[in-house]
């Protein structure tokens, strides 16, 4: 009898200990937020919030989720604060907004140019916000990016996330999780960077109004695309520059964030090759010579040949491969140097932990310049030491040992 009572009491206690269920919301009455967009509002209120929520589009399909369409809906609201805008959303519709599954935070360009410091407070106090959500800046408004109708996937937020993942995997960008952005900004007086996303309509995909297009044509016409090959640069918690594609390509090397990268090169004779960096390790270190600090980027990379165009009677292929090595080295040097010059020397943003590197490796010198560090940023020099080896040539080209 004692044991039965103990089991019953334990069961009741266990149920009572499931405290996360108080208060509870039914799944059907919950708006599961997939993406969060913030823009500067027009009018009296300061912020316009756009929430992309999961909305199953199953009716008529074989499953409750129709994989052929975008299972998402958009909710917008305005407010003087982020929490206030969310409150307006709650009061204007029946579902409870749940941010625990949020994947990304999109900042409108206008808001980014104004000031982003104030929006962090909401996310830092919200226990449901994941610190690893992607943060990005939209080329126009966050609302426009979140409203796009993308092909593939059942959720456009998921597709946007996958697009970012692909762009990172191909070496175009480094993804910027929320905690990374706030940490970089906190440590570097409001300097940081995030991927910059551009809404893009594929060529020839304009809607055809003639009325005689096929169903397939219509589908293509309705589909949007996004491009993510650039970075937005912040200083003092505000957007200061949009980096061009070449400059942006240098950042993954400087941040040791290259998983894979294609390098297209062409020599003076017009021979072309595409090399695929499949392994890359980089280290940024300061070198002090008198009063001149040079940051040296050491790159160790392994590459394989992805494509090559050479005349069939070309007599010295081994020389050509060495030439390609040099050309690729020059390309990486050019991209990284441009990124360093633009970000550090021109804009005065320490997003590569230069202060910490100096403190660690050249402590005495750092103590001398510590108080004027921001001014010193424009005087820092940069060079690269690149060790790029093409290891895999493919199956059709035989190269003599040199």
């Amino acid at each position, binding site marked *: 009898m004692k044991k039965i009572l103990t089991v019953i009491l334990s069961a009741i*206690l266990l149920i*009572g*200990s499931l*405290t*996360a269920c*108080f*208060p509870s919301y039914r799944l059907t009455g919950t708006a599961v937020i997939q993406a969060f967009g913030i823009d500067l509002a027009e009018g009296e209120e300061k912020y316009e919030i756009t929430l992309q929520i999961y909305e199953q589009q199953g009716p008529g399909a074989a499953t409750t989720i129709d994989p052929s369409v975008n299972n998402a809906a958009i909710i917008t609201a305005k407010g003087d604060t982020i929490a206030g805008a969310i409150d307006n959303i709650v009061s204007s519709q029946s579902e409870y907004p749940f941010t*625990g*599954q949020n994947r990304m935070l999109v900042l409108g360009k206008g808001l980014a140019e104004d000031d982003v410091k104030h929006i962090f407070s909401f996310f*830092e106090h919200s*226990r449901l916000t*994941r*610190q*690893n959500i992607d943060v990005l800046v939209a080329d126009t408004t966050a609302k426009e990016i979140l409203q796009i109708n993308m092909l593939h996937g059942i959720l456009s937020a998921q597709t946007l996330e996958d697009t970012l993942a692909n762009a990172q995997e191909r070496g175009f960008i480094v993804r910027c*999780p929320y*905690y*990374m952005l*706030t*940490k970089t900004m*906190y*440590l570097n007086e409001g300097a940081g960077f995030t991927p910059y996303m551009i809404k893009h309509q594929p060529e020839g995909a304009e809607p055809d109004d003639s009325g005689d297009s096929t169903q397939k044509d219509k589908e293509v016409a309705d589909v949007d695309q996004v491009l993510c090959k650039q970075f937005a640069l912040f200083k003092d918690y505000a957007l200061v520059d949009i980096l061009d594609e070449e400059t942006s390509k240098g950042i993954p090397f400087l941040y040791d964030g290259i998983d894979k990268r294609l390098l297209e090169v062409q020599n003076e004779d017009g021979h072309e090759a595409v090399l695929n960096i499949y392994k890359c390790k980089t280290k940024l270190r300061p070198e002090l010579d008198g009063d001149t600090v040079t940051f040296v980027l050491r790159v160790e990379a392994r590459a394989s040949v992805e494509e090559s165009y050479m005349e069939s009677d070309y007599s010295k292929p081994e020389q050509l491969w060495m030439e390609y090595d040099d050309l690729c080295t020059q390309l990486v040097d050019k991209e990284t140097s441009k990124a360093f010059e633009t970000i550090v020397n021109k804009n005065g943003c320490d997003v590569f*932990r230069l202060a*910490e*590197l100096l*403190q*660690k490796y050249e*402590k005495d010198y*750092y*103590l001398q310049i*510590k108080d004027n560090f921001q001014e010193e940023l424009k005087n820092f020099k940069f060079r690269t030491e690149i060790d790029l080896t093409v290891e895999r040539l493919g199956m059709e080209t035989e190269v003599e040992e040199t």
Partner: protein
Amino acid sequence: METHKITGWQFALTLAVARMFSVVTYTPMNTQRVESTALVWGAFISTFMILIIMLPVFLLLRNQNTDIISVAFDQSRVLGYIVGYGYFLGILLEAANTLIHFEFFMQNAIVPDIKSSIILITLFLAGIYGAYMGLEGIARTGAIFCIIFAAALFMVFLFSFSRIELVHLKPIISEPVKSVLSVAWGDTTRDIEILLLIVLFPHVKGKFFGATAKYLLLTAIGLLFVSFITTAILGDYLFQQVFPFFTIATVVNLESVRRLDAVYMMLWTIAALIRVTLYLFTANVLLQRLLPFKLKKLSVLFIAVIVLVSSLFVSRSIYYTSIIYQFVSNGLVLVLLAIFIPLVLLILSKLKQAKRGESNR
């Protein structure tokens, strides 16, 4: 209540779990404003500080399988009661402190929408049950959970490896010695578990030094690991975080587990439960010895109600919570109970020995 002896390893592993609750919750202490590298050095040095602090206790208990209360009673009955009630109050305070900070963690990081009393009462009921089961049951649970906890810490390291930036571990510029010593002292003063070591030692097989060495080894590894991982991932940004170690869990990006922080919450809950249980049990052991009459099984309930009511009262306001936090972390409890009292008892026992020696001559 069961009072079978447990092994030194079981004891050390259980105490290590109790200690890890305060390590993961308070590292770094939110009042500390030092450079983050100081946290790692401070964690390393605090182990040696504890060894030095415990020197009087080692000398006092080295050749006897007894506890500090018995030693005090050997000196005089009044001193025995003073020391006994001193330890009882210290342990009661730490039990309440655990409940308060567990509730603080749950309400700030996990479930802010619910009443604090629900969190406190459920943990309180589980704690009473654990204390009734006795030290053997607590130690078995603690030893098994310590291994799970260690595995979870290893998982954290594995999944956060790509987020580690060793550049954050840079030389300390501003008052390096002072800041390292300040962190080391902070880490040392939060090691209230050494009071349990001193009081509960008669329930443990083996020598006092052996059990202490095992405990110190485990906690040194745990503290060093938590300090290193939070510093290497967050750098000085960790001072912006209320629960830096929990933040580490939220930045892990796994395709299979998107909310690893939910798994971590379980570690916090079980560690808090074992800690509360251990403190309730110890307070009960002390009360049974100090009261002139027997309360039998009601004594656990009596202690638990005091702890629950005080924690319910304190957790109503962040102001009261921070007062208790400051009081415990300023080191007064540890200095009084782990340094001052053992030192006085050591001196008194040496004097007594010397007197005996003289009278024998």
